[in-house]
């Protein structure tokens, strides 16, 4: 469809211009003493009306044969043919309608076109049609470049989504192989514990793969994933790791993006408890209040904090992810507290998917 047709204001201005062009042309003919106004008007007004639509219609052939770097001679020839054909048709129409004036009591025709008049009209038509084709080609080029930009933006968005998806699926190899080593050690020391750890490890990876494809999950499912992870880490760290999960029943149905808590728990162990000589308590707390779900992960930190950077980056990513998900209605805060390090999240409390 022609872009002007969906743009009623632009269309109205365009039609009004041509509606005024009819009487204006008649006035010009009258001023030049070629024809009286009352004879010229019935000839100019309908012709301008028809030409208004013919000029617009050049959009379609232009769009079907866009000018490209490779085919420019062919498309230029096509446009010349188009302009010549339309000009001829319009000229025939103008001459025919002029002669039809005899039927209305003007034996010379409405304006009495002579050879000079026809030549002048032909030149005007050719000029106007060329202008129309040029304008449409410009418009099409603009539309094409805009569409390309939009497609590019769309592609970038998709690539980002894919990247996130991959990141979520990414398995921490250090965690995997160390856990397998612990299982290997337990097979001799405590076969039952070895089996329990193998099952926790399988469940952890299965649920990670399962959750990654979903947009939002219940807090209960996220905590399930965390509990398998913590069971494995407790076996690896021994009595260095104590955990306290406080999630009242009304919080369990709350929805949140998958893998919101899990990376925080991994961070708490990596940067907080593991480097400490005597470990400590990792606490996870969930709370529903005034339509908000509040989550907190707290852990003690080593006296000399690890110099590994990347912690702030991970937290900023989480903040961005949640803000994008909740259109800015999510809060993520973190910082050192007397009892250690704390990350606090507040998101709207929602339970229906």
């Amino acid at each position: 469809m022609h872009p002007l047709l969906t743009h009623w204001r632009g269309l109205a201005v365009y039609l009004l211009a041509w509606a005024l062009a009819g009487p204006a042309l008649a006035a010009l003919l009258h001023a030049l003493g070629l024809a009286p106004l009352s004879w010229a008007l019935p000839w100019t007004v309908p012709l301008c009306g028809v030409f208004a639509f013919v000029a617009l219609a050049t959009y379609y052939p232009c769009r079907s044969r866009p000018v490209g770097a490779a085919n420019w001679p062919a498309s230029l020839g096509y446009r010349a043919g188009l302009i010549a054909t339309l000009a001829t048709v319009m000229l025939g129409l103008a001459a025919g309608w002029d002669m039809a004036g005899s039927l209305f009591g003007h034996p010379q025709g409405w304006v009495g076109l002579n050879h000079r008049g026809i030549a002048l009209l032909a030149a005007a038509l050719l000029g106007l049609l060329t202008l129309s084709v040029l304008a449409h080609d410009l418009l099409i080029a603009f539309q094409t470049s805009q569409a390309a930009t939009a497609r590019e933006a769309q592609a970038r968005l998709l690539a980002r989504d894919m990247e996130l998806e991959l990141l979520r699926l990414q398995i921490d190899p250090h965690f995997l192989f160390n856990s397998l080593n612990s299982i290997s050690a337990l097979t001799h020391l405590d076969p039952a514990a070895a089996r329990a750890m193998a099952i926790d490890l399988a469940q952890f990876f299965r649920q990670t793969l399962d959750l990654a494809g979903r947009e939002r999950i219940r807090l209960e499912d996220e905590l399930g994933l965390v509990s398998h992870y913590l069971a494995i880490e407790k076996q690896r760290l021994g009595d260095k790791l104590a955990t306290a999960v406080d999630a009242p029943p009304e919080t369990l149905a709350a929805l949140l993006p998958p893998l919101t808590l899990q990376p925080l728990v991994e961070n708490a162990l990596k940067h907080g408890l593991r480097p400490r000589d005597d470990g400590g308590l990792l606490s996870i707390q969930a709370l529903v209040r005034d339509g908000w779900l509040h989550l907190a992960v707290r852990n003690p930190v080593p006296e000399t904090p690890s110099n590994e950077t990347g912690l702030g980056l991970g937290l900023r990513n989480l903040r961005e992810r949640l803000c994008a998900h909740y259109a800015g209605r999510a809060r993520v805060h973190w910082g050192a507290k007397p009892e250690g390090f704390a990350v606090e999240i507040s998101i709207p409390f929602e339970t229906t998917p």
Partner: protein
Amino acid sequence: MTLRALLADDEKLARRLLAEYLRPHADICVVAEADNGLDAARAITELKPDLVFLDIQMPKLTGLEVLELTGRRDGVIFTTAYDQHAMRAFELHAVDYLLKPFAQARFDTALERARRLLGQAAPELERLVAPGPRLTRVLVKDGDGMQVLLVDDIAYIEAQADNVAFHANGREHLKTQRISELEAQLDPARFVRVHRSFIINLAALQGLERTDSDAYIARMKNGKRIPVSRSGYERLRTSV
């Protein structure tokens, strides 16, 4: 002859697995276990075990840092779960290492190799852990334990009998080393041997004072005054 072994891994289960794999080797006894890099470095320095089973990823110091700081080069068997950086370095320098989880047979092979090379400084390890051209940190005694000092924190170093004393953050830390050896390892643009017994950190220098006897004294930011010898003064003048 009994061989004495150190097991260094931050996970108790991993250490128990090593102990289990060592059981068939009756001539090896475990003399110490360490669950972090600093304890491992201390055990290596104090106990001088024949064999060291060394995990790469440990709190406080990595396995490679332990070797860098202790200067230990022989009888080391690395273990690692997954550390791409270290694994690439091992491959590059043809250093043997055990990938967790490993089988008894693989463990025995690595042990056999380490045993055969016992007492010989391993050139591939030397290349692997050779510290950069300039020292960035030092391992020092700290009461009963050990501590890692950043050279940036050191104000000045003083020779004391067989030891050198590092003055850093208002405290004194001892290490058994010769001051001339240390001088060669430090960046000469930042550390200057101003006296037979003193190296100062230029960043901690406040100013120079001239004494009546036409000698110089370096006044440090912490108020300490350090004698400057004639040749020390020349070195100081070219550095500042």
